[in-house]
């Protein structure tokens, strides 16, 4: 590896982290705008045209706020928890296949930090599991009963839904025959997207992704009426900002993973080969840019679905959440694997 490779990796890291921060800022704005529209309101429209700079004003405000640490809190873990949350969220971004590789100056360059990683899917699953430490530690170290309840709920929720999530992915992995996200996309771009082969897995993944990112209707860890603010009750200033940011970053990551696994990743047109339809050479820069746009568009569409669901559905009760996770989603995902395996065996693929 020479210094140009190194420079490229550093540049990609800078682009990804900054893109993630800006995307999170605008997702907060989108959340507020869509919430307002659903409730027949207008939403933030004072800071900049259509309120476009609202999130930056909010972040600026968070920076100016006093950072309050409760006297009884374990201040080391209290400070560590937001860092874990955001670090884990960023790590997932390293393996998300943002674009196909394109050859520039004899080097294959793609926007992904770790392209063609053969265990990318396992990294994602592992990282989303580690993400619960941020929430659990935030709740525990605050030394506050509401925070602790939020952290506990989050742990229980993650354990229950992590299983179904992993099992729902197995169907996709069986079809693609690989844990490499690029291979999974390649497998879809020629034929049909996985959502047509695995509709039940897609629904299970969508539900578990909502639970994993602590979004409504599974936002029990921060259920305002019961737990004040849940695990981030005792956080203020930019520490709160980081926890908040991690939530939105996770949302975008989950959407991107869903787009990769089920909606064909960067494939523009379902059922057909993009390159021949658009008359562009496979692996050429215009095609890769178009495909990158398609991938981002799919991810943002799923982010919209996340927000839309949040402002439509009421929160689950805790026992309902557990019943859904263990009694419905888990058997359903196991059955999905069995059916997928049987069909594949019969079709001799």
């Amino acid at each position: 590896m020479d210094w140009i490779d190194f420079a490229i990796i550093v540049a990609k890291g800078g682009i990804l982290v900054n893109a993630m921060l800006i995307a999170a800022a605008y997702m907060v704005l989108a959340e507020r705008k869509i919430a307002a529209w659903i409730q027949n309101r207008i939403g933030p429209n004072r800071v900049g045209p259509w309120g476009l700079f609202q999130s930056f004003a909010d972040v600026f405000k968070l920076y100016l706020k006093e950072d309050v640490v409760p006297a009884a809190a374990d201040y080391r873990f209290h400070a560590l928890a937001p860092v874990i949350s955001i670090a884990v969220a960023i790590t997932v971004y390293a393996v998300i296949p943002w674009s196909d590789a394109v050859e520039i100056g004899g080097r294959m360059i793609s926007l992904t930090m770790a392209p063609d990683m053969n265990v990318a899917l396992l990294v994602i699953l592992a990282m989303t599991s580690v993400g619960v430490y941020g929430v659990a530690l935030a709740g525990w170290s605050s030394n506050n009963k509401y925070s602790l309840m939020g952290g506990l709920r989050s742990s229980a929720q993650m354990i229950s839904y992590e299983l179904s999530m992993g099992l729902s992915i197995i169907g996709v992995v069986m079809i693609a025959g690989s844990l490499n996200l690029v291979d999974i996309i390649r497998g879809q771009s020629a034929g049909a997207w996985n959502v047509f082969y695995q509709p039940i897995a897609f629904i299970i993944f969508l539900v578990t992704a909502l639970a994993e990112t602590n979004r409504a209707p599974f936002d029990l860890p921060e259920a305002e009426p019961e737990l004040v603010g849940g695990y981030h009750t005792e956080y203020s200033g930019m520490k709160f900002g980081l926890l908040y940011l991690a939530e939105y970053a996770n949302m975008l990551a989950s959407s991107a993973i869903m787009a990769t696994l089920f909606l064909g990743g960067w494939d523009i047109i379902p059922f057909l080969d993009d390159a021949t339809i658009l008359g562009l050479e496979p692996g050429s820069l215009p095609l890769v840019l178009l495909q990158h746009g398609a991938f981002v568009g799919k991810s943002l569409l799923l982010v919209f679905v996340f927000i839309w669901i949040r402002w439509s559905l009421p929160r689950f009760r805790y026992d309902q959440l557990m019943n859904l996770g263990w009694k419905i989603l888990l058997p359903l995902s196991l059955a999905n694997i069995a059916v997928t395996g049987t069909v594949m065996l019969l079709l001799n693929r």
Partner: protein
Amino acid sequence: MANVTTNIESERMTFWERIYLPEIARGLGLTLRQMFRPKFTRQYPEERWEPEGSYRGRPVLVQEEDGERCVACGLCSRVCPALAIEVRAAETDKEKERYPELFEINMLRCIYCGFCEEVCPEEAIVMSKDYELVFGSQDEGILGKEKLLIPVSQLQDRLEFLRQWR
């Protein structure tokens, strides 16, 4: 146990209702439709709300060309349930013989009940449409005559409303 009837939610619901997903889709459809409906928001500092004559805003004194209508009878002060009004009477050479030397309404106490307006024999104190009441200190909340006197031309809506309903 043969003739026992049960009414359990899980038994009432059909299969499609029990798996939730169609109902969730219906709910999502509803919220999606709402997104394109007209908005109710009023852009407040730019778009102001103009109340009807029946609105009970800040109580004010009616000002004619030759001064206030008030004859300082003190009935408003007497009837005020919040003890917000203070009147000190003085004599004048005009036909009405008395006028308020001092007339103060403590807006921090006022409850906008409109009793002062109702009891006034001269239609001299009426409720205005002014609802933007902001004070920087407690002293500023006590309004004297200079702030209470409003020309009669600006109060026509309220005066008409009072004549209609009294």
